[in-house]
């Protein structure tokens, strides 16, 4: 199977554990080179965050298990890059329009 190089996840998490704890936990996963987490919505009980994970061969099941063990929920996989190298999205005429 192809190696996953980048994952972008839409995640809903409780206030505890903090973003720092979640990012650290994901960063500790084997073959994960880096994590970017940004907060885009907050309410009384939860936080909506975007998590970008980059690595050489990311195991999605382990990432999912780590996130769920911390009490969070993956709403959607918004972007995924797999294969031998990172391929960025190309802008087409449709996007420019």
């Amino acid at each position, binding site marked *: 199977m192809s190696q996953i190089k980048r994952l972008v996840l839409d995640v*809903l998490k409780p206030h*505890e554990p903090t973003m720092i704890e979640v990012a650290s936990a994901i960063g500790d996963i084997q073959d994960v080179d880096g994590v970017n987490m940004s907060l885009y919505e907050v309410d009384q*009980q*939860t936080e909506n965050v975007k998590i970008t994970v980059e690595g050489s061969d990311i195991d999605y099941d382990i990432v999912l298990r780590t996130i769920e063990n*911390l*009490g969070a929920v993956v709403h959607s996989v918004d972007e995924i890059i797999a294969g031998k190298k990172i391929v960025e999205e190309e802008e087409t005429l449709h996007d420019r329009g």
Partner: protein
Amino acid sequence: MNLNIEEGRYIILGSIDGLLATLGIIVGVSVTSASNPVIVSAAFGGAIALALTNGLGSYLAESTIEHGKLAVTEKSLLRDLSNTYVESLSRRKIMKDAVFSGAASFLGSLVPISPYLLSVGSVIVSVALSLISLVALGIYAGYISKQSYIVSVIKMVGLGALIIVAVQLLRISHLIQ
């Protein structure tokens, strides 16, 4: 040890409870018996009972609150939080609060008992030590609440003194009879 505000609550609650309730036992028993072993025995019995009831009471209360909070969070996340880090944090908090409450209560009880253990036992010495401890608790309360230390001490000692006076009045009324 780095204590947070939540732990401070149980330290103050437990200490005051142990201190003043045990002092009440000592004052009450000393009316009927001046014997050291009798007073120490009654006071220790009370101290242990207080520690256990405070610890268990805190455990039950915190369990209720924490499970309620978890249920609200689960509803927002639309998922079960059993066997997650979040649930383990809750369990740890419940145990910590129960232990702090029971331990603070027992340690508070030792203050009025200590003169009797050192064979310098008298109600006056126990009351004096208790008031000094209340001053220390007042300073701690002021530190946690970031309010005036003097106001905290006055509140703590004032309320404690009221209870001591009430117990002493009971003692005096028994002597009059």
